[in-house]
């Protein structure tokens, strides 16, 4: 009997992983399959999912899609730029209100309001967050947590945009299938664009801002400019989610700034695997239905998903996706020391 102290786990990349990293990926179907299988599984899985469930669960999946976008944006900001944003609801609110107001006052169709609100909402939220971009770590987290509250209070205080009752009877999207595939398409596109983005030059700068912003500065790169860009990109996703949400139910109100939009994506990210981008998406697609299934239990479900969250963060901080990726790419075995 040897105790764990006498052994260590050795991990080696699988040969196929190494081969598929270069041009060799094109050499055989097996290599290409190795690369494509997980991606295809994800895409086709998402596209087929709505066909397998009833129309109520399709609604749940729509909401899960919104949370997936938020989780993706959280993961990007936290893991690639170093800005821990606890205010996902802020993006949802900005996008949702912009889209809803354009529809309500100008009568534009959702096909225009959603893309416009995505961009304008993102511009607005970036501008509002701009003064805080100098902050880091805990400070940025706390301030971003407070922004949704501030906006809600201002809306109530000034009694604008429908005040506490919000505005209802906005135009809705044509049908549930459109709803469903619109958000899924958005999730898939956002996911692959982000994956590409973080490996481009700009992604490199983002990551170095996270690791050592002084060094970035010393290289003559404005960190504020790049943080602004990053926040803009992240808020595009959140604002799209918000705009979509306000048209899905034809309603807008201060609960678009609700804390659930900030908390659940974080839980999804922790559970799915921070830093993997795809993990948070999967996490959102697991947590949202789970939380919905627990609806009958009232408060218990918040307690349960907090327990899951804490369990993951304490005992399995790498999350599901990091674990799976490791298993997929590497051999593991125990070695005597």
């Amino acid at each position, binding site marked *: 009997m040897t105790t764990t102290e006498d052994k260590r786990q050795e991990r080696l990349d699988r040969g196929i992983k190494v081969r598929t990293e270069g041009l060799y990926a094109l050499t055989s179907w097996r290599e290409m399959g190795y690369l494509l299988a997980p991606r295809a599984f994800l895409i086709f899985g998402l596209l087929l999912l709505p066909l397998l469930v009833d129309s109520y669960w399709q609604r749940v999946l729509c909401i899960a899609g919104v949370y997936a976008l938020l989780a993706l944006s959280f993961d990007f900001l936290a893991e690639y730029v170093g800005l821990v944003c606890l205010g996902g609801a802020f993006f949802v609110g900005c996008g949702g209100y912009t889209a809803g107001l354009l529809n309500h006052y100008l009568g534009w169709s959702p096909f225009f309001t959603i893309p416009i609100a995505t961009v304008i909402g993102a511009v607005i939220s970036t501008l509002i967050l701009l003064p805080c971009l100098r902050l880091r770590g805990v400070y940025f987290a706390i301030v971003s947590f407070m922004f949704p509250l501030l906006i809600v209070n201002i809306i*109530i205080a000034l009694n604008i945009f429908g005040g506490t009752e*919000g505005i209802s009877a906005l135009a809705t999207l044509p049908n549930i299938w459109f709803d469903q595939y619109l958000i899924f398409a958005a999730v898939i596109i956002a996911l692959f664009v982000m994956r590409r983005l973080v490996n481009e030059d700009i992604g490199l700068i983002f990551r170095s801002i996270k690791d050592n912003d002084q060094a970035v500065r010393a290289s003559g790169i404005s960190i504020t400019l790049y943080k602004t860009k990053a926040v803009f990109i992240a808020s595009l996703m959140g604002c799209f989610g918000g705009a979509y949400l306000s048209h899905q139910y034809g309603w807008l109100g201060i609960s678009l700034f609700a804390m659930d939009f900030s908390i659940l994506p974080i839980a999804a990210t922790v559970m799915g695997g921070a830093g993997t981008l795809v993990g948070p998406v999967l996490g959102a697609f697991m947590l949202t239905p789970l939380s919905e299934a627990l609806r009958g239990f009232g408060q218990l479900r918040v307690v349960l998903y907090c327990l899951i969250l804490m369990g993951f963060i304490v005992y399995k901080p790498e999350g599901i996706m990091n674990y799976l990726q490791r298993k997929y790419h590497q051999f593991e075995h125990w070695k005597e020391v």
Partner: protein
Amino acid sequence: MDESRRNFLKTIGITAIGAGTIMTGIGKAHAQAKPILVGCPVPRASAYGQNGERGLILAAEEINAAGGVKVGSVMRPLKLEIIDTRDEEPGVPTSEVLLAIEKLILQKKADVIVGGPCMSECSIAAMDLYARHKIVDIVSIGSYTPTWDQKVAKDPEKYKYSFRASGSVKWYIKEGVDLLHGIKENFGYNKMFISIDDSLMCRAASEIVKNMAVKDGWQITGFDKHPIAATDFSVALSDCKKSGAQILFIWAYAPETSILLRQWADMEVPALPIGFIGAAEDPGFWKQTKGKGAYTIVTLSETGCTPSNVTPLTKKYYNAFQKKWGVPPRSTGCVSAYESVYVLKDAVERAGKLEANALIAALEKTDLPAVRGTVRFDKNHQIIYGYNPKESVLGNWVQWQDGDRITIFPKEGATGAIKMPPWMKKS
């Protein structure tokens, strides 16, 4: 209050909690006919929701015990499908509430919807959902906003599926002003201080009250708005005291309003508190304020929350509720939720089927003697409130006297007269 005593200690430190099952349906197994599935969206964590739920369950049990609902020639039992909508909880988006309602419609295949959600914001947003799914709903817990019937009026064809059996704030304001008028006549008061929760609804409503009161000859000596979670009202109360007001008109739904009333008693403010005070509606209010809430006048919105004799059914309902749940009906929601199940039964029996258009036609013709008076809907599908129990349903203003809620207005239901606190008695 005793119901809220619970064995808290048992649960301290329990982090892993076994799943508890909750009652989601109360259909009786013995009934052969296919039950009528009534979807009930209810915010379980709010007092209004809980009491509405109790009203719904009580009515459904009574109806099932009496054989059920006669649809055509078949007696079909009622089955309630109660779902937690979580509105009125902090941090819950409206989409979540709407999702719960869609679950009732799409997955549970509810025949009709009766109940919440309570929050006006949510119930207004839900109307579009009912229109889209072409399902009849009777709003019967909370949701007092005038926007509701305005919305129906704007597009009666689209929103014909929605009925509201709970009150409209418009009527409650009229009641309030009439009550104030009576006080002016009887006590010779004419100065009023207004204190409200700072929410859109309270602001708009108190503005109307203010204008109507001014027209009636009242002098407004001050106006205080406090944010919804405020716990210190001393500034406003001392203003009120200084201003020489004789009436403290309150419009507030935050639970913290009970603090306002305690501080009112502590500071011996010589102005009688009257108004829409969510916290003071509760039967536990007396104990909670340790009797300091005495003399507060508050509306329970619905006849039947106190044992009066407005209709033969009023006391019967009160006693049945008390017997079933061990507490008296609280306020808003208890009676209207209870009644709306009967309204539904009545309409289904007259329509002879559950098809939406037939049911709507039958509901529009409702003329049902019930607990609050006689249930009728106006052309905007809003239940008609009034002072005549033969033609309309009645409100219920009570004053806290010696630990009990004594109905003092409208006079058809009155079981006592207004009393004044000792520091306000003229020497």
